[in-house]
């Protein structure tokens, strides 16, 4: 993994995409047809099956950015920078889904689209900061882009534990600390999590391939 993307990783792209599409289709079917309608909130509660997996995927993506940033500073290999940037970009999409689906659920649960409570506020801060990562990456010169991005990828990760623990650290949090489900609801949630994580992997592979092609074009090498 030090000089480029391994062959098996590139070759697995069609399989991962097929798996992702099938899993997402099954999970959406389960959300609509299998998971029971919650008594108090009604059909709006089903947003949880998109919201929670997206939040978990966001954390995985930004965690990958953090790990790859450390690996880049240790090895100075372009592939780690490509992994960090790719994971961060796809993670931003999932973070946006979290920010959009959250208020839709909150409108029904709390009777407001948005409230300044710790989890919402810290997640919005996280979204702004990782948006800043991409702006900085686009603004910085080619020679220092990878190092600056890696440093930023490490610094910004500090916010993830804050988002995670915010509901415990700050008093008066409205956001549920954890999602407790049983039966079909629990199975649907676990299936949704698996489906969206595989979807993330497929999108990440695609984005990484683009980074690889860009690197090949810039360095005059052939890309896999």
């Amino acid at each position, binding site marked *: 993994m030090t000089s480029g993307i391994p062959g098996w990783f590139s070759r697995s792209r069609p399989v991962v995409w097929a798996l992702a599409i099938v899993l997402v289709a099954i999970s959406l079917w389960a959300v609509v047809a299998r998971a029971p309608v919650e008594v108090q909130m009604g059909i709006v509660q089903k947003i949880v099956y998109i919201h929670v997996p997206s939040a978990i995927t966001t954390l995985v993506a930004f965690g990958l950015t953090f790990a790859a940033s450390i690996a880049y*500073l240790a090895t100075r290999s372009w592939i780690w920078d490509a992994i960090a940037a790719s994971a961060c970009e796809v993670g931003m999409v999932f973070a946006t889904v979290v920010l959009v689906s959250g208020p839709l659920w909150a409108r029904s649960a709390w009777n407001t689209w948005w409230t300044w409570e710790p989890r919402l*506020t810290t997640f919005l*801060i996280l979204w*702004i*900061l990782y*948006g*800043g990562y991409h*702006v*900085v990456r686009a*603004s*910085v*010169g080619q*020679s*220092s882009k990878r*190092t*600056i991005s*890696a*440093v*930023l990828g*490490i*610094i910004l990760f*500090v*916010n993830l534990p*804050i988002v995670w623990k915010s509901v415990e*650290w700050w008093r008066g949090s409205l956001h549920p600390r954890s999602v407790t489900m049983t039966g079909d609801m629990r199975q649907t949630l676990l299936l949704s999590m698996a489906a969206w994580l595989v979807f993330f992997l497929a999108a990440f592979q695609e984005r990484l391939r683009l980074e690889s092609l860009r690197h090949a074009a810039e360095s005059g090498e052939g890309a896999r």
Partner: protein
Amino acid sequence: MTALRVLAKDLKLHARDARFLATLSLFSLSLVLILSVAFGPLFRDPAREASATLWAALFFAGVLGLTRALDLESESGGGEALRLTGADPFSVYAGKATANFLLMGALWVLLLPCASVFFDIGSLRVLPAVAGVAVLTLIGYAAWGTLFAALARGLKARELLLSILLFPTLIPLWIGAVKLTHSLWAEGSIDAVRDWVKIMIVVDVLGVALAAWLYEAIQEAEE
């Protein structure tokens, strides 16, 4: 020793740049004035409004101070010369962060009486504790601000980018500063919001620790 030399150099650069210091002071005073007019003329909770105004003005004006020393250094080629000396990167960072801390401290000394007068708030009895809150806040501001300013040095529209990165990162520090200052002015103690001191210390330590780890890489990126 290196840190002290860098500190002396940065302070000298600031002292020679009287026009910038005047601009920074007037800009921060304008912010206090604008916010006090926005909240007034009849204040509902002057302690809260004054503390929010004071720290908002300091945080916004501080961004200009953070980038100024680096700009002056770049213009004269001082930054490159400093790297060629082979000085320990963390010592360079420590000197710069201390200079930024002192600049922000001077700004706080200027703004505190203004906020007190405009909002008719504050007492000398709690002044040492309010100063303690300022020290705790400005250590974090200087620690993170210097790190991000170095990161954003070569970028276009760096003040904007610095704001995008710095302000969200410092929100726990900003909330803590406002809550503690408000509590001191309104109740004379921080008993009700004591937990924020711990959070602010964590933010301060984290900023310095990350700089100790990453400042060398940032310097390398500039070469």
